């Protein structure tokens, strides 16, 4: 993917840049709001990562508002040291697609950026049948089959699996699952998500010889066909 990173802190910028490039993405960088805005409006990116507070008079929210004002729908992930929930709401209201507070784990950032990049592709929204390897999900009849064999799922398990399938081949973090599948925005102390995923595994992986849901250490989960 082509990614634009606008971040003024050199350490964080270098760290994110390196990580994204290692993950195989093409990344442009800017260390101030002016350059960032110029790149964002003149180039075509799959995802823009914006720091909220930037030097040079133009902060992240201004860039975002300008982009949206020009009907530019590039997915934007906001990075901020402001953890306040109201700040988060302000960021999402201004047209941001996702919001992360500093400090963050790179794996979480990568997972979210890749999820945003995929969201930009048009085909996923209107599909009624999702297929990954021998696993198929029918969104209309709400049934799941693996290798032609029907799997019974609870409604919540169905939504969890749907999310994993839609992001097949991508790492999804526990926080992403909690936010997107359950719509909760807090940090549970216990491993609630792990338990739900392990239950899903019991049904989707256990009866078959090849597991599809894998745990990625320090990051989250990934659903893969191979």
């Amino acid at each position: 993917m082509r990614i634009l990173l606008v971040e003024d802190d050199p350490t964080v910028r270098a760290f994110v840049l390196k990580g994204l490039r290692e993950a195989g993405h093409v990344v442009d960088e800017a260390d101030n709001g002016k350059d960032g805005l110029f790149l964002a409006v003149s180039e075509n990116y799959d995802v823009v990562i914006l720091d909220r507070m930037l030097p040079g008079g133009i902060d992240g929210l201004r860039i975002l508002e300008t982009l949206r004002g020009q009907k530019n729908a590039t997915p934007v992930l906001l990075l901020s040291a402001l953890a306040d929930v109201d700040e988060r709401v302000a960021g999402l209201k201004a047209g941001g697609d996702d919001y992360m507070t500093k400090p963050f784990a790179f794996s979480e950032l990568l997972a979210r950026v890749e999820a945003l990049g995929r969201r930009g592709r048009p085909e996923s929204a209107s599909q009624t049948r999702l297929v990954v390897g021998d696993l198929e999900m029918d969104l209309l009849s709400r049934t799941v089959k693996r290798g032609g064999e029907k799997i019974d799922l609870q409604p919540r398990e169905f939504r969890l699996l749907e999310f994993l399938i839609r992001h097949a081949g991508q790492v999804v973090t526990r926080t992403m699952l909690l936010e997107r599948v359950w719509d909760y925005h807090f940090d549970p102390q216990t491993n609630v998500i792990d338990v739900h995923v392990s239950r899903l595994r019991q049904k989707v992986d256990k009866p078959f010889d090849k597991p599809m849901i894998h745990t990625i250490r320090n990051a989250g989960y990934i659903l893969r066909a191979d």
Partner: protein
Amino acid sequence: MLRRKVRCFGLVLKRRLRWPIRSAGLNFALAYGLVFVISAGAFLSFIWWNTTGQLDSQVEIAVQVDAADLSHRWAQGGPTALSLAIQDRLDQNVDDDELYLLVGPDGRKYAGNLPGWPVVITRLDTFYELAIKRDGFRTNAKMHAYPLTQGFRMIVGRDVRGRQLVRHVLTDTLIWAWIMVTLLAAGGALAIRRIFRQVVRSIARTTAAVAQGDLSQRIPLTGNETDLVGQTVNTMLERINRLMDGVKQVSNAIAHDLRTPIARARARLEDANRTATSAEELHAAIDRAVMDLDRVTSIFEALLRIAQLEAGARRAAFTVLDIRPLLEGLSELYEASVEDAGLHLDFRAGAVQPVNGDPHLLQQAVANLLDNAIKFAPPGTTITLSVDMQGERLAITVADQGPGMSEDDLSRASERFFRAETARNTPGAGLGLSLVQAVMSLHGGALELRAGELQTGQPGLSATLLLPVVPAVSRKG
């Protein structure tokens, strides 16, 4: 150009019209004085007008009654009888204030004490007030002319010099009274200004002391209306004091509880840097240090959230909500991990009224209670999540059959960073219940902790969130 001029003029006018006195005390005093002087003026004018009016109308009535009586005499006996009657009256008039004149058709005087018909009197239907000369004196008289038959005419009047004297005296007295009242009003105004200043000063003295840093000062309450301000300021000071204490407590706690994981991470990194012999060893040490730092971050976030909630500024997301589906969702989310920990989750919901609250915060509060229960309950026991009405309030209870808490620990449980001795070995930072407590205060609710299951007498802990419900009236609107 013209319009601009007009606008300029308007501005000047506006500026001119602006009231120049800024002092509230002076304005109060002026308003008081003004009201006093105006009302006294109105009152005294009324007295003057009424009294003089009364005197005038008395004279007029007397003249009219007299004239009616004399006309009667005329009708009975003609000029002779009337002349006699007039003479009679003049003889009996001790005050010497009555005036009469009877003239014939030729203008000849038949009777009376007026020297002749005054030229001014031409109309016969109205009172005249004029200066006349009588017995060598100048005096004022009020007179009325009446027509009689056969061309005779008559004047009946009263000398009103005495009454005018009374009027003068009255006017003087009233003017003096008004001057006195004005002086009194000025004095009163000054007194009011003084009182006002004193009141404001007593508040100002306290707030100045507070501004200097002495937060223990309170405005003395005296029982008058300013107590309303005083009480509000005192309550405000109380709250500031509490917040300051909180900040103090938190900074101490931060110093202690955040240093530990930071020190640990630092030690790990330094140690690995010096002694690690393989890449794996180094990676492992770095991973653990990152985990320590993540813990620091999460403590920071929790502290910030609590501080934000306690500042009471986060009511933007408040909405009227039904608590049941919210709890059902949480119960569904937690059921799996509860069962995974070898426990059983029992969800019971009674009929409840809606509450006004922030759904995310309430979810977080209940989730914290569930996290705690899972952490401390021994395997094989049941965690109960229930919601019901408790009087006028909604009660959400999370009860476990774990070890419970001692009375001492219960009272300190929601303090920041507090951890009971028995909990030292479980993970956590001692902020969960503080956050719950903060969420409850923001919602005007309360967190109640009770050791032991009430029904069974078994050990355990039950945490109850009490929330005020939305009154039925405002729900309709």
